[in-house]
């Protein structure tokens, strides 16, 4: 009997493993490289990584929420809100940059906290909680700014998403965004390896077992939402920096982040997957967008290509892993 179990396992693709997303990523990269060889030159690659940082950060934040068995649909509107708030508060005054950045982080954490508390304390499904939060944030930010963003971001604020260390040995340039991404990614990986990260996965996999093993499931899940909110804050700082103020700053990012996480092999419903996979999923998505730019896929047809590739990729990894868990 032990033998049977062992063998069945060896053949199985390890669910939540990185193999499928790595394969997709490499294939896309090769396609990109053959079409546009200089894309793979270090400076270009560095810029690409820098501008992909926001989605990767959001995917990392979303990972914690999804692996805990929840959803965060509010991150897109949170990013928009953050950027608009930042512009109005900074109002192009460089001296306000740092206080506002701290405020944004606090704001992100607070929104996450509210999401988490409503979900865990009031037992509202997180899909609904964060959908409601999405509506509230969008409405509130339009309301607060009278329908049009006001003020402006200071250059000090914008450099994080826009500027780079130039003339770096070997790689040419290193965007600040990339450094921030690396730092946050390292933190995220450490966090998933920590006791909190592991118990969070358990809380997503089987909350009752986790609770009876001493995991404070509600704390853990709430903290996951806070992490997602914080990630959205950092992403907002980078997006605001990269492209300035706009109501479109965060539009659709929640779906992008969730798609990325799922592409990266993280199961919706919780309990399995890695943060590296989630971030790789986001990078793959960004690569796909760039690929379409280089291959000149008609602007209007892009979503079709994107949809087809996502469906294909997820189908392939679903075939290889366990029966899909339903949305909760």
């Amino acid at each position, binding site marked *: *009997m032990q*033998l049977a179990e062992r*063998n069945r*396992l*060896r053949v199985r693709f390890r669910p939540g493993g990185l193999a499928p997303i790595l394969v997709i990523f490499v294939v896309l990269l090769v396609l990109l490289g053959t079409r546009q060889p200089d894309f793979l030159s270090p400076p270009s690659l560095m810029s690409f990584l820098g501008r992909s940082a926001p989605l990767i950060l959001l995917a990392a934040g979303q990972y914690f929420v999804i692996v805990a068995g929840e959803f965060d649909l509010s991150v897109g509107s949170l990013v928009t809100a953050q950027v608009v708030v930042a512009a109005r508060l900074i109002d192009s005054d460089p001296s306000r940059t740092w206080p506002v950045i701290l405020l944004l982080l606090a704001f992100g954490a607070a929104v996450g906290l509210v999401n988490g508390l409503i979900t865990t304390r009031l037992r509202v499904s997180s899909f609904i909680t964060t959908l409601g939060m999405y509506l509230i944030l969008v409405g509130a930010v339009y309301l607060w700014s009278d329908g049009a963003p006001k003020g402006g971001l200071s250059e000090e604020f914008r450099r994080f998403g826009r500027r780079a260390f130039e003339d770096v040995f070997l790689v040419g340039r290193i965007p600040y965004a990339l450094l921030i991404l690396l730092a946050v990614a390292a933190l995220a990986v450490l966090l998933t390896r*920590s*006791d909190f990260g592991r118990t969070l996965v358990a809380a997503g996999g*089987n909350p009752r077992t986790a609770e009876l093993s001493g995991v404070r499931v509600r704390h853990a899940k709430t903290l996951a939402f806070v992490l997602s909110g914080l990630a959205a804050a950092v992403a907002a700082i980078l997006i605001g920096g990269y492209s300035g103020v706009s109501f479109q700053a965060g539009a659709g990012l929640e779906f992008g982040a969730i798609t990325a996480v799922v592409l990266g092999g993280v199961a919706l419903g919780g*309990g399995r997957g890695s943060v590296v996979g989630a971030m790789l999923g986001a990078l793959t998505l960004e690569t796909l967008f760039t690929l379409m730019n280089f291959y000149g896929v008609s602007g209007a047809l892009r979503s079709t290509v994107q949809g087809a590739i996502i469906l294909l990729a997820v189908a392939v990894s679903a075939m290889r892993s366990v029966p899909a868990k339903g949305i909760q």
Partner: protein
Amino acid sequence: MSDALPSPLLALKGIGKSFLGVRVLDGVDLDVVPGEVHAVVGENGAGKSTLMKIVSGGYAPDAGTIEFAGAPRRFSGPRDAQRAGIGIVHQEFNLLPERTVAENVYLGHEPVRRGLVDRRAMRERTAELLASIQESSLPPGSRVGRLGVARQQIVEIVKALALDARLLIMDEPTAALADNEVERLYVLVRRLQQRGIGVLYVSHRLKEVFDLADRITVLKDGRLVTTVPAADTDPDRLVRHMVGRDLSSYYPDRAAPDDPGPVRLTVHNGGNRKLRDIDLRVRAGEVLGIGGLQGSGRSALARALFGAAPFTTGEVTLDGAPVRLRSPRAAMRAGIAYVTEDRKGEGIVAGASVLDNALLAGRAVLPTWRGRAARTARVRELLAAVDVRAATEDQEIRFLSGGNQQKVVLARWLALGPGILLFDEPTRGIDVGAKSAIHDLVRRLARDGAAVLMISSDLPELLGMSDRIIVLRDGRIAGELPAGATEEDVLTLALGTVPAAA
């Protein structure tokens, strides 16, 4: 008996089944005649479940033939087998708590009139079926989620009968039942028998097997060991067939009278919504058995002590000092561990690895970053010490057998070095080999100075393992029994009367 029986209802010949090249069943022959209870026993992994799934249409066999009611059959799925007249009562109930009894009973084959489901016919027929097994007190219109476990099982059986099942597969039907409920099940099975229905009865509990079965088939490692009339064998021989070991080696020696140390845990006047006036003391080194019927407050007591559903009144002391066990974390910090009854639902994280499962409690209660490596090493040692058999420590725990899963859960708790261990049905659904390993472990823990509370519905286990037994009834302590008490003693206290017929 078997020689004389004509025309079997079900005849399996040379059944074989492989998964990914591994032989799980090999040349199994088995037959069931109408009105017979045919028990199938064997360790977990012996191939019982696979065999049952083949009979009920869940799997197609690789080799061999299935004959049912005189004709060769190949079932394309559970639906096909059901249509043919093979019903199955699962170990874990297959019922929808949000739906009514009738809706559950007729799920998949609702009666239809003019294209629409005939709800009245459905209710009436359900009532008739219930009446036919003398269970008419069960209303067909009530929500299943509101019924107790025993009544849910009746719904399961009626569900099979509704399909005019001529063969009923019962897979560990007593796993969730208390003893008096098991009695009712016996009565039910005998009624089915009288109606000419053949029953394939899978169980780990040898007592039931001998109480009910006409013939017993033993499987081991996917092969047929023997099929014998129940009257021609006894539990000892059967266990030897299954594992090649004597029944007498089941229970380790009890503690000597002066082994137990100082009082570790006391409860005075403890109570909550499910418990009242609980007074008890457990000493270090002692195994205190907790007996009682399902719903008598046994699990509630364990959950109260573990802080999952805390006492709202009374006092608890630990090593003489009063403690407040408001949450599992508080209990764990106080050195209490709880091995739950519902292993799948509350014991393991199915999709997580063996190692992650074993590390869970430590990570939750004593988070550390620097001490990670040391902690992991300690848990690895514990996993080895409790003899978990898995391909690798990274294997997902859901692929392990029940016994191995339970050992991982034990390792999780041992990693915290608990002074008090609460076991709730620690050997339920676990094969004989793993069972005795767990018994040994429990005793060893007590010997090493832990205070152990052990809840068990398996009376021989309760009696065999406990140094003392407390029996609960209706949330109160009905009485205490010393080591060497009999099953009748326990039942008398549990029922509050002289036991009906045991």
